[in-house]
């Protein structure tokens, strides 16, 4: 028998714990957690693709699009409202995914990975050539209000943290339900045997297309959140190393649970941050060694630690 599913309960409990605990966190930790949760959204979207049997090396495309969409709202329309910025980012990344997805849905495996990478590098190239947008230096974003109400600097910090936490919890619960639904269950089926899915009467192409768009929406939202939290954006967000880092964290987290991306992302940010502090000259080695250890001892990702214990209890 399967153990009772407590994912949603844990997600909601986690949200309340975060919202309450956030008020007591030191500022640096609040910032780190906010960033980790926002990036966790990207990793969650990669989890959906990985469940479908796809790896994207071009998630930077939507991440960067979301950030620049939010930034342009501030820059061109002089609107500093977080709600408007996030909505525009969501709309822009979905719109682009609707078009790009049409092409991507025909590819699998390495071809899907490389084509998505190509799209993100096109955006990178365009942004680098745009002197008006600051080229590689990018530009600053300031959030002055949220849904009409103006903000002080302390309330802005907490608001962005609460927003990230709420989006993370909502996305985790939503993704969990989606993966359990009829449509969601087709994802692993597509990964395992496309032919059989087609014979069962479902459209593989439609599943891949839909999942690509959901992933893009989450990633665009995360990009805008990151932009608001950091206060600065640049084309590096579309560069392939950024996409690579998301894949790195996705592998670190594993695809076993929708909660794994947030845990993996948080651990990664902590690891990297302390590696920067304690070994400024060799931090890459520390991060690389961690990756190596996870691959060797936890081949299904960090979540395996919980999975094993769960089984023993059940």
């Amino acid at each position, binding site marked *: 028998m399967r153990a009772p599913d407590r994912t949603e309960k844990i997600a909601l409990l986690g949200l309340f714990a975060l919202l309450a605990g956030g008020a007591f966190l030191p500022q*640096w930790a609040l910032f*780190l957690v906010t960033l980790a949760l926002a990036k966790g959204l990207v990793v969650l979207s990669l989890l959906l693709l990985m469940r479908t049997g796809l790896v994207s090396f071009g998630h930077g495309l939507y991440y960067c699009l979301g950030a620049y969409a939010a930034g342009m709202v501030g820059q061109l329309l002089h609107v500093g409202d977080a709600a408007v910025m996030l909505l525009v980012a969501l709309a822009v990344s979905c719109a682009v995914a609707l078009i790009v997805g049409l092409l991507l849905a025909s590819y699998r495996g390495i071809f899907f990975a490389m084509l998505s990478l190509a799209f993100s590098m096109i955006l990178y190239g365009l942004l680098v050539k745009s002197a008006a947008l600051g080229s590689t*230096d990018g530009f600053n974003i300031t959030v002055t209000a949220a849904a009409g109400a103006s903000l002080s600097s302390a309330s802005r910090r907490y608001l962005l943290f609460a927003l990230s936490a709420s989006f993370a919890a909502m996305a985790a619960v939503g993704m969990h339900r989606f993966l359990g639904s009829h449509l969601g269950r087709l994802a692993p089926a597509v990964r395992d045997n496309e032919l059989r899915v087609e014979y069962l009467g479902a459209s593989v192409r439609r599943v891949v297309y839909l999942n690509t768009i959901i992933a893009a929406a989450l990633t665009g939202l995360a990009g805008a959140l990151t932009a608001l939290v*950091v*206060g*600065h954006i*640049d084309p590096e967000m579309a560069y392939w190393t950024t996409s690579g880092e998301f894949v790195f964290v996705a592998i670190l987290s594993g695809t076993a649970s929708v909660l794994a991306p947030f845990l993996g992302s948080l651990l990664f940010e902590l690891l990297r941050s302390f590696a920067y502090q304690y070994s*400024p000259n060799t931090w890459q080695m520390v991060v690389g060694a961690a990756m190596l250890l996870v691959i060797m001892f936890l081949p299904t990702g960090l979540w395996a630690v919980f999975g094993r214990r769960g089984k023993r209890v059940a």
Partner: protein
Amino acid sequence: MARPIPLFEGLAILAIASAAGAQQPAGAEVKPVKIGIVTFLSGAAAGPFGVPARNGAELLVEAINAGSLPPPYATKGFGGAPLSLAFIDEAGGTTKQVSEYRDLVQRQNVDVVVGYISSGDCLAVAPVAEELKKLTVLFDCGSPRIFEDASYQYVFRTDAHAAMDSVGAALYVTELKPGLKKIAGINQNYAWGQDSWNDFESAIKALKPAVETTTSQMPKLLSGQYGAEISALLSGDPDVVHSSFWDGDLEAFVLQAAPRGVFAKSTVILTAGETAMARLGAQIPDGTVIGARGPHGVYAPDNQLNRWLRKAFFDRYGVAATYPAYHMAQALLGLKTAYEKAGSGAGQEKVIAALEGSSFETPSGTIRMALAKGHQAIEETVYGTTKTVKGQVTVVNVKRYPAEVVNPPEGMKTQDWIKASLKRTK
């Protein structure tokens, strides 16, 4: 090449710093000053910029703690307070740098942050410094946008911004070639390369409106192969070729362009050429115009501080001190001056007030915090032409341009200044 990482040296400095702290009698009121240093320790910018700057910081802080700098800096520490350093790698992009900046200030509790080579990082970190109310000194980044698009209370920049390099280059070549008719450029396709070329081109056009641009080549950063670009440069037959290339790209360009006659046909001006001089040596053809982003390295004035830095740096690291090390010295000596003017045990607000609009002596001469309400430095700039003497590359026909001539006046944006009044300033 970048030296392998001298971790033990960093530890040695920390040990010295803490030993200096231990020498204070118990209960003494001088609290040590903890400085967070952020420069590239990995990636392409580490070798030419990050590591020389890091080495400069180590050297200076050790000497300041020992009180062994030449006057006017012969006193120990910052007004008696010993210094300790915390290093952070600048690699990884602005998101990580903002995160690391917050950690530096709030987790490591540094008293002041000195750092940032990339203009993108400077732009990203400045508003955060303002939010956290932490004195932050940008020591090397070039973009004029930092103080021209915003105004800061806690952020300073102790090196002149990059417009000076392009304006100085334009003045030098127009004086060198009175009959200048055609210019061309080859610059890297990112913010530094684009800004350098735009400023140079508009400065030339302000000085000599009839000059024509034959081509502006923008290969991508670190591409290494310039065959097609060199052909494009040659076919236009320009009098002057401008390039803001640095390090590996610069070396590759010189080695590929020289045999094809670019340097013989046109006068090539390399605005950041000084970083590659030591390694390329006599491979740089005679008659090349070289810049060092100010009066640094070979162009540093012959003062006591410079003689000390040049010798101490070479003795310790086995290579000549290049401009990032000089920029680092400017930041640290500016801070030392401000801390001592504010008086021992003074709060951050007093140090900021002392640094605002101040002027201080450095190995690169006098630095004046003249722009952006006293937060942005100006300094003179220098250009010269290479000449090989007995297999050693030297610079001749050296011209120094006073700070006021190559920097915009207070309250004026660089682009407006270049277009509107460069002619009059000259």
